[in-house]
């Protein structure tokens, strides 16, 4: 019930709403492009003048072919980005969700049954804080995902996708489990859990009625933060030409290799676009700016949720100041007529 009321407040929160609407509209555009336009990407290989003579060959910048120009083979980048949005956002939401759900379960089990080992396990898990996630993911994935030129591909696309989802999920499980375990531990020390225990609540009852409702908003916030982390990880892997669903290397000519993404997901464009950064910079910047906007939207959602969910819980300094201001404000406004301070506080 309280959660329901909070959700209503959440959708009235301007920051959350704007972030949510951006993601929603992007996904809606992406799906409607697939449904109504059958995912067709317009191609402009050359520009013609009014007499039908070819004036120039691509790739074209954003000024020649609005809104975002074309890539090496003449496809319109804006449409590619719209089309790929559902994959990129979908993958990151899926991976983040899996991470949170699995680490939530592990964290709960760990906190309940193995909490004595906490010190040792947290020491071991601490190792993850000294390894860039992209590096370890690269090492884990490169043999499966990357098919070099002239090599036989041993796996199907589906297998690669599942393996990549698996790897992207497990690399964050240990740290997240520990984090959630510690949060659960803190909830167990709170007063209302103690009284529930005194009143004879069993372990499962307390979990169902007290822990989960309490931790749910926190997990939701962690979920959007985790989504951002997955997006960044996808960018990094894309930079190393490890593309979702597999990379096929093709030789364009003696000096150049093209890395072709099998799915049309965003990060696939980053590695290629970076090599053409100085020449065709719009390719690189349009895709990274789209990534930035999506991350910004998720950040806005996180901020909104923090404002709505956590305000009552940790009275942070800002809110305390705000309340103080309110109280003095009421007092000042009604200083013409005599009133008890206590009453004015109640009104506030």
């Amino acid at each position, binding site marked *: 019930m309280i959660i329901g009321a909070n959700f209503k407040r959440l959708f009235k929160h301007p920051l959350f709403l704007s972030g949510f609407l951006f993601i929603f509209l992007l996904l809606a555009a992406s799906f409607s492009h697939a449904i109504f336009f059958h995912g067709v990407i317009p191609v402009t290989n050359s520009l013609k003048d009014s007499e039908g003579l070819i004036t120039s060959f691509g790739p074209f910048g954003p000024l020649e072919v609005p809104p975002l120009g074309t890539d090496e083979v003449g496809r319109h980048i804006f449409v590619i980005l719209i089309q790929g949005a559902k994959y990129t956002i979908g993958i990151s939401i899926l991976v983040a969700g899996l991470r949170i759900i699995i680490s939530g379960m592990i964290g709960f089990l760990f906190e309940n049954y193995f909490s004595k080992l906490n010190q040792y396990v947290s020491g*071991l898990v601490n190792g*993850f*804080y*000294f*390894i860039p996630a992209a590096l370890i993911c690269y090492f884990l994935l490169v043999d499966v995902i990357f098919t070099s030129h002239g090599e036989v591909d041993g796996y199907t696309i589906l297998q690669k996708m599942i393996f990549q989802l698996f790897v992207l999920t497990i690399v964050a499980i240990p740290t997240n489990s520990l984090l959630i375990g510690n949060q659960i531990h803190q909830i167990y020390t709170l007063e209302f859990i103690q009284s529930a225990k005194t009143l004879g609540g069993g372990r499962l009852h307390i979990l169902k009625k007290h822990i989960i409702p309490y931790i749910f908003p926190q997990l939701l916030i962690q979920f959007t933060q985790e989504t951002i982390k997955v997006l960044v990880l996808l960018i990094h892997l894309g930079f190393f030409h490890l593309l979702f669903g597999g990379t096929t290397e093709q030789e364009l000519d003696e000096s150049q290799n093209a890395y072709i993404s099998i799915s049309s997901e965003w990060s696939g464009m980053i590695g290629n676009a970076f090599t053409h950064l100085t020449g065709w910079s719009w390719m690189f*910047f349009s895709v990274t700016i789209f990534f*930035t906007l999506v*991350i910004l939207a998720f950040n806005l959602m996180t901020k909104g949720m923090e404002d709505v969910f956590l305000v009552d819980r940790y009275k942070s300094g800002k809110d305390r*100041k705000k309340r103080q201001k309110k109280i003095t404000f009421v007092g000042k406004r009604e200083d013409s007529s005599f009133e008890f301070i206590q009453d004015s506080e109640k009104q506030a």
Partner: protein
Amino acid sequence: MGLYYRIFLKFILTAIGIVLISALPALFDGMKLDISSYISTLMTIASGLMQPFAVTYEHLQTDYFLFPDIWPLWGYSMTLLFVSFIIAFLFALILTFISMIVAGKLRKIIRGILFIGESVPDILVIGLAIMTAILVNKHTNLPFFSIASFGDKQVFILPIIVLTILPTVFFYRSMMYDFEEEISRQYIDVAKSKRLSMYSVLFIHVFRNAIIHIFLHSKSIIWFMLSNLLMIEYAFNIDGLMRFMFMHRSLPVLAIGLLMMFIPIYMMQAIGQIVIEKITGKQVEV
């Protein structure tokens, strides 16, 4: 448990954790689990750690000894990391002080800009930096904006600038949070009522108390900086340790490289922990 025992235990456990994690790629043979190869890789890494001077890496089909070749790479990466860390910390501190002092509207603008900055992926910063450097090189003749390192020449300025920007933003966020938390405490009201100036309250009392929290938050910022460093070394073609580990794809080299990065960072954290615990008398966890 004593302070030094805890620090030592954590050091050993984290080092073991790093070795276990860096051997993980051997666990998967393609997509199949291969536990025996994982264990044998662990053995190889362990023997490599026992005799680090016997570890070799392959370069152009020839084996070279890892030591002493790795030292300059390590030094380069560590210089970039620590210099950027310190600059980012100081910058964020200055920004925090400025936004604590200025009036509400300006503070909101600074916060808003840095909130957007939090969403910028490091790759975009690298791209922008390269474009700016090219522009600068075209129009002026400043030597220190060279983009890629050639041969023995090492570049410092541009990588350090890039490696500083985003950590500054993240530092700023955690600093603002801690400063505002601290400034709403009651002792601030006492100090104000005693007519201490806002500056002395801010610089002495708030700063001293908030810095402890900030230090404890710095772990995740360092983690972020490490992946940032990997990207920068790859993008700028820097002969650093991260790129070395990335290019050679040998698990013993990975484990040793990561441990070599871990030790100085952990030493910094441990010194901070000792100082904090001695001053405050509270147990903290870095």
